[in-house]
C-alpha cells in the first residue's frame, strides 16, 4: 500500500539537505526506512528521521529523485510505502551516534540525553544535526577543516573513548562504514551499523541490496559489528543496477 500524505513543512537543514515533516500514525522504530516514490521520476529508500507521532524525512540532494523530493511544499503530498527493515537495538546507557553524509538522518531519532555524536562532512555548512547534541557531546570533522577536526570521520572517532559507550550507532555510505569497521576491527565494543546500498524493491525480492546473501532491506539495514566483520562482500563488491558485480 502506498501512503500519500501531505507534508506540514519543509525545513532547510544545510545547503544540500531538507527535512519534510508530516503526520503518519504508523509504528516506526529508529533505523527503519520507507521507499519514497516521486511519481514520474523514481523511488528511493529514506530513513525516518523522526519516529514519534510526527514523522520526518531528511533528504540529501544527490540526484533527480532526492532533488525533486526536497522541493515538496507544505500541503503537497509525498508518496511512500513501509516502514521496512530491522531497527537499531535500543539500550539504556550512554550511546554514540556516528553519521556521515545523509547518515545522520537515520540516527536523529536516537538523539537523547544519553547520546553523544560524531558528525562528519566536507565542510562546515554541510554538518547535519550537530546542533541537536549538547555542546560537550559532539565531535565534528570536516574534510576542509572549516569546523572541528580537519579530517574524516575516523579521525574524529580516534579522539573518543569508544569503550565508554553502551552502544555505538553508525550510519553512512558503505565506504565510510568500511573505514570505521577497519578502524575498530575486533575491539570490544557494541556497535550497530546501518548500511546503504542500491535498493529497488525494499522488501527482500530483487537482490539489488544484497551483501553476503543478506538482504539489506529485510535483514538490515542495521547489522551488528560482528556480522559485518563476517561479510566477504562488504566494502569490496556490490551489485550494479543490472545486477552485475562491481568493485568499490
Amino acid at each position, binding site marked *: *500500500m502506498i501512503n500519500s500524505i501531505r507534508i506540514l513543512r519543509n525545513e532547510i537543514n544545510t545547503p544540500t539537505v531538507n527535512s519534510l515533516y508530516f503526520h503518519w500514525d504508523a509504528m516506526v522504530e529508529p533505523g527503519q526506512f520507507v521507499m519514497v516514490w516521486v511519481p514520474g521520476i523514481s523511488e528511493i529508500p529514506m530513513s525516518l528521521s523522526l519516529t514519534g507521532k510526527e514523522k520526518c524525512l531528511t533528504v540529501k540532494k544527490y540526484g533527480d529523485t532526492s532533488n525533486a523530493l526536497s522541493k515538496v511544499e507544505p500541503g503537497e503530498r509525498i508518496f511512500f510505502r513501509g516502514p521496512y527493515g530491522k531497527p537499531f537495538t535500543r539500550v539504556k546507557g550512554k550511546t554514540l551516534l556516528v553519521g556521515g553524509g545523509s547518515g545522520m538522518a537515520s540516527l536523529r531519532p536516537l538523539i537523547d540525553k544519553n547520546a553523544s555524536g560524531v558528525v562528519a562532512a566536507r565542510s562546515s555548512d554541510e554538518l547535519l544535526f550537530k546542533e541537536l547534541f549538547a555542546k560537550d557531546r559532539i565531535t565534528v570533522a570536516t574534510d576542509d577543516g572549516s569546523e572541528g577536526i580537519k579530517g574524516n570521520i575516523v579521525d574524529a572517532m580516534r579522539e573518543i573513548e569508544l569503550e565508554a559507550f553502551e552502544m555505538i550507532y553508525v550510519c553512512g555510505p558503505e565506504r565510510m562504514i568500511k573505514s570505521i569497521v577497519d578502524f575498530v576491527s575486533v575491539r570490544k565494543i557494541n556497535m550497530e551499523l546501518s548500511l546503504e546500498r542500491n535498493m529497488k524493491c525494499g522488501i*527482500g*525480492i*530483487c537482490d539489488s541490496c544484497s551483501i553476503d546473501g543478506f538482504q539489506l532491506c529485510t535483514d538490515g539495514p542495521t547489522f551488528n559489528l560482528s556480522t559485518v566483520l563476517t561479510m566477504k562482500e562488504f566494502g569490496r563488491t556490490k551489485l550494479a543496477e543490472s545486477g*552485475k558485480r562491481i568493485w568499490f
Partner: protein
Amino acid sequence: MSISDISTSIGNIHLSNPLILASGILDENGHTMKRILSEGAAAVVTKSIGMEERNGYKPPIVATDDPIFINAVGLPNPGINDVGEEIKIARESGKPIIGSIFGKDENEFIHLAVKMQEYGVSAVELNLSCPHVKGFGSEIGGDPTLVKKIVKGVKGSISIPAWAKLSPNVTNLLDIAIAASDSDALVLINTVRGMKIDIYSGRPVLSNKVGGLSGSSIKPVGIRCVYEVKSNLDIPVIGVGGIESALDAVEYIMAGATAVQIGTALWKYGRAVFSKVSMELVEFMSSEGYEKIEEFRGIALK
C-alpha cells in the same frame, strides 16, 4: 508410520525436497543463491540472463497491496558473460543451479544455453514468457512456431536438460505447450499481465506501467495451467505461482506437478519459506498417510 520422504526428481536432477527458488527473486548474486540453498531450497533458478548487461526498469519496480503483488523489474541482469562468477559461487552449495535465459530468437537462446552449460548449471530454463518486456515476452511465448524452433535448437546444442517456462497470457496454452514439448520439462506459470494505478497521484505505480501479477492471487491460474497441460500431455511439469504453504504445493502436485517453484512468498516469509513449507509438507503427508510424493502426484487428474 515411517517418516514421509519429500524428495523428488525431475529427469536426472534429484531434489531433496520439491521446492525450487523461482527465477527473478533473489537470484542474481551468487552469495544470495548460496544462502537460500543453505536455508532449505532444494535448487535455485537464476534470474533470467540475456546476451548483454541490462539495467532493467527504474523503480518503482514493484506495486504491492497484500495479497496483490505486481512487478516490472525489466529483466535486469549482468549479461551472460558476467554471470558465470555468480553461478560459481552458488555452486559451492553442492545443490542444483538452473540457469534461466531469455533471448529474442533461436540463436540467442542457443548461445546462452551453451554458455550456461559451460558454467556448470544442472539445467537451463528457457524464459519464453516475460510479460512486460517488449520483444522477449508474448511476442515469443505466444508464437508456437518460434517456441518450437527455440526449444529444438537449444535441445540440439546442449546435453543438460532444458526446461521451457511458459506464460499464462495466451489464448490457448495447450498449443504453446505442445510446441514446447521437446523440452525436458515445462515450467508453469510466469506472471499474469497486470497493472496498478495510484489514485492520489493519478499515475501508474510501476515505472513501466504494466507489470506481472504474482503471488497468491494467481495460484488458481497456475493450477489451471498445470492441470490443463497434464491432462493432455505426458511431460514433467514444474508448478509455480502463488505457493506460500505446503497446502499450495500439494495442490500443484495433485494437479500433476513434479516439483514446484516459489518466488513471491519470500515477500511474506523471507528465505525461511523453504524450510517452513518443507516442514508443513512432511506434516501433511504423515497426517494423510502418504509416504512418498508419487502417491498423490496427479491424483486430481483421474
